[in-house]
């Protein structure tokens, strides 16, 4: 068979080198100029206690999502892989380990669940790994070697990548891993000589790999992040790790605090002192930060809070994706508590979006909650990021000399934005508080002052709109079916639209990184042009749909997917087809 796109999943238990398989595959594919996307799913427990999988999709064309059906499942551990068989396409393949020690009952055996539509291929993974490394390590390389032969991929792309990935471990580790790879390759060449062909342009330029978390950290640093404070939490920790490594080199600071409340407190303190500051957390952390975000609103202190969403509520599903934090991001504060909420849909937007978030936060003296999610944050993908490095940029509104002499921290202005200084600036007194206050920043509980200040804080949001990017409309403008989406679900929507287009059904999509506020005119025009509107999202309540309903008065067809895995494009395509049939009647 000939392929131009393949989706593979490695499935095993923590410690089997599953995540490393994805990393090696992604690196190898990027080097030869393929588009690749890797999604890791692992248990929240420590090594040896839970299932782990890495799904790799690579193609000669641009990828927007993880797609549907697997072409190949590699079951490193039988029992744990049984459930993944349902994801294998008819005509797809399974590689299973035949070096099992001890008897396995029929029901517990991966092989016994392989249906006739799927092709099983045996490979003594563990035995060959032992032969190569003298240990159980290297199982992933045995499997990758077999896959390399199975799809006629050039072995050099993997050999080079093994050398890169294991460079820090020395020559011996590189040698035994290459041996493991070669043993897998030779086993398949001898036992399954009839292989498939993956066809690609051998002269394609190498591509760059990144993850959403990586892009957020890099984007923030490139636009002048000087201070990061955080508390480790899956799936956001990587942002702090990058900040800890990179900020000190640039004269910045990273602090690991005792909890999330302290982290956001430190961020507000650094921002109060004039630094671009950020924290990154996930749902449980955002809950804890709620009160301090309100302080950011009330005291008008710029702050960036990245929320890499995971399944909730409570501790929830630490290693699974969901888009369930929109409501807390929008409304999770006491009182009338306006805040900016943004949601990037891919890694490129993570980079450019976080820079926009900083500019908005600094200019409008507001917290910005930047809603990424586990799938977007942790997936590795080939991207083309347009770098924008300006670490000295400043969008804070400075007082004029006259304003400074009679400094009013919360001066009433047309756009709601007051001049901002750092405490200790000569000739001015900077008074601030979380209590309601007058223009000077002194506590004041009079009703007309509260009304005036509340109006001022909300007026900033009217002013922000002019600085916001326009929403983007993709697809066929003449389509009667419109889709509105947000965050990482956008990728699946785009591929779902393509599937529907192949069936002759036209659709269009409106997407914006801005969740609140939005430039509403384009949305209104878009919705008015649709006979049906579909809103798919990864939560149970339809949180974005609820926002759109209240804001634009639409009655959308909602797809609520409390997700564990990224949304299936096919599921979206099916809803489009159903909607189209209903429209045609």
């Amino acid at each position, binding site marked *: 068979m000939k392929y131009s796109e393949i989706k593979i999943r490695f499935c095993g238990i923590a410690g089997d080198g599953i995540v490393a398989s994805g990393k090696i595959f992604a690196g190898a594919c990027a080097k030869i100029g393929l588009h690749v996307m890797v999604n890791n799913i692992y248990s929240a427990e420590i090594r040896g206690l839970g299932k782990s999988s890495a799904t790799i999709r690579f193609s000669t064309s641009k990828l927007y999502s993880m797609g549907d059906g697997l072409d190949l499942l590699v079951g490193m551990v*039988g029992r744990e892989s049984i459930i993944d068989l349902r994801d294998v396409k*008819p005509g797809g393949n399974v590689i*299973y*380990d*035949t070096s*099992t*020690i*001890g*008897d*396995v*009952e*029929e029901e517990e*055996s991966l*092989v*016994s669940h*392989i*249906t*006739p*539509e799927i*092709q*099983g*291929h*045996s490979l003594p993974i563990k035995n060959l790994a032992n032969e190569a490394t003298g240990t159980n390590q290297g199982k992933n390389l045995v499997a990758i070697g077999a896959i390399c032969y199975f799809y006629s991929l050039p072995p050099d792309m993997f050999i080079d990548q093994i050398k890169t990935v294991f460079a820090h471990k020395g020559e011996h580790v590189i040698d035994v891993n290459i041996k493991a790879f070669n043993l897998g390759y030779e086993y398949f060449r001898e036992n399954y*000589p*009839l292989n498939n062909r993956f066809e690609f342009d051998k002269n394609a330029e190498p591509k760059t790999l990144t993850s959403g978390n990586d892009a957020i950290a890099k984007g923030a640093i490139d636009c002048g992040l000087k201070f990061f404070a955080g508390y480790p939490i899956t799936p956001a920790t990587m942002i702090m790790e990058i900040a800890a490594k990179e900020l000190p080199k640039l004269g910045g600071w990273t602090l690991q605090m005792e909890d999330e409340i302290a982290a956001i407190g430190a961020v507000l303190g650094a921002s109060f002192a004039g630094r671009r500051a950020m924290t990154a957390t996930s749902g449980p952390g955002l809950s804890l930060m709620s009160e301090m975000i309100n302080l950011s609103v009330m005291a008008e202190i710029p702050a960036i809070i990245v929320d890499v969403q995971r399944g909730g509520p409570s501790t929830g599903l630490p290693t699974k994706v969901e888009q369930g934090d929109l409501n807390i991001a929008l409304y999770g504060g006491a009182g009338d508590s306006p805040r900016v909420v943004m949601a990037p849909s891919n890694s490129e937007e993570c980079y450019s979006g976080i820079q926009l978030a900083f500019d908005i936060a600094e200019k409008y003296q507001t917290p910005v909650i930047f809603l990424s999610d586990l799938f977007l944050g942790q997936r590795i993908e080939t991207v083309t990021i347009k770098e924008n490095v300006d670490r000295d940029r400043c969008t804070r509104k400075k007082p004029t000399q006259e304003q400074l002499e009679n400094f009013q921290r919360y001066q009433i202005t047309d756009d709601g934005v007051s001049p901002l200084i750092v405490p200790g600036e000569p000739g001015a007194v900077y008074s601030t508080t979380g209590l309601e206050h007058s223009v000077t920043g002194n506590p004041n509980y009079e009703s007309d002052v509260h009304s005036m200040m509340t109006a001022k804080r909300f007026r900033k949001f009217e002013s922000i709109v002019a600085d916001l990017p326009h929403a983007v409309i993709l697809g066929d403008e003449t389509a009667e079916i419109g889709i509105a989406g947000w965050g990482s679900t956008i990728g699946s929507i785009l591929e779902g639209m393509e599937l529907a287009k192949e069936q002759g059904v036209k659709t269009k999509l409106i997407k914006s990184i801005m969740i609140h506020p939005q430039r509403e005119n384009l949305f209104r025009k878009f919705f008015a042009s649709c006979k049906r509107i579909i809103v798919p999202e990864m939560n149970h309540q339809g949180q974005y749909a609820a926002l759109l309903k209240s804001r634009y008065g639409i009655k959308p067809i909602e797809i609520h997917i409390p997700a564990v895995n990224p949304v299936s494009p096919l599921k979206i395509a099916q809803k489009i087809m159903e909607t189209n049939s209903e429209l045609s009647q």
Partner: protein
Amino acid sequence: MKHVIIGAGVAGITAAKTIKEMNRDAEVVVIGDELFLPYKRYLLTEFLCDSIKRDELLFFSVEMLKELGIKLRKGEYVKSIEPSEKVIKLHHSEVMHYDKLLIATGGSPGLGLVLRPFKKHISFYYSLYDTLLLKEKLPEVRKCIVYGDGVSCLDLICVLCNLGKQVTYITREERATFGLDEIDFDGELHEFLEEKGVEVITEEQVVSIEESEHGYKVETIQQRMLTTDIVFAWDYYKPNISCIEGSAIEKKLGILVNTRLETSEKDIYSAGDCVEIYHPNIKCYWINFGLPNALAQGEIAGKNMSGQNEEYKIQEAIVFDLMGKSLKARWWK
């Protein structure tokens, strides 16, 4: 009642179908070592020549298997059988229980000690997998060497001739007879092949095969040096019975069965090319190769596994088409 059938060839599949026809509720599991859905091996030649499409090779589609309620396990083989426990163990250490077991593992060509070291240079033409590999290779092939005996060897020579390849046939025998009784061929099979352009080299043996710049160099025992693009070779065709190693199931060259196709172990049956059936006329066990035998044995094994009591009547001959001419091959006179 769980019926497990080892082998997804003609005999195994026929037995599975028969069991389901007799008892819709019977659980039937068929274990085949090939990667494909059960197919008609006797049509491989036509598939290789593009006379039929791949789908036409199949006994059953996936949907038909589902409809019949037959569970197929492809690409797997049985490592051992433990009749006392009524379990079989598969190559990946899976243990499967059975109530009735049929061994229908067929036969296959094999290499002797002389040729075994050259296995990687030898092409086979026995399974669908071999055929698919050949389909990829053959467009580049002009000259072929075929070394071996038996009906399948003759079949291969025919298909290569039909595809316009230059064929050299090497045999240890004095004449190219393929171990067949040529009673209906006027004893002129050898001459017939030569007339069709096949070079026949008799009383020779291949002893070495080496890769060369443009194919292979083949050396014979009489130090003849031949060049070719592809080499087909096998020394014998034998029943596949490695799965019964270590069990108490009686065997000679094949698994020994009575005319009810029962083996020496209770509730274990065997059918097709892997068995030696007791022949009351010659008072000895006899291997019956070929499609009609496999069909008949599969059906009888299926019936007997379902509680019937049928006896197999030994077939004496098979008939096949040889480049447009009918050839009846008899196993004995």
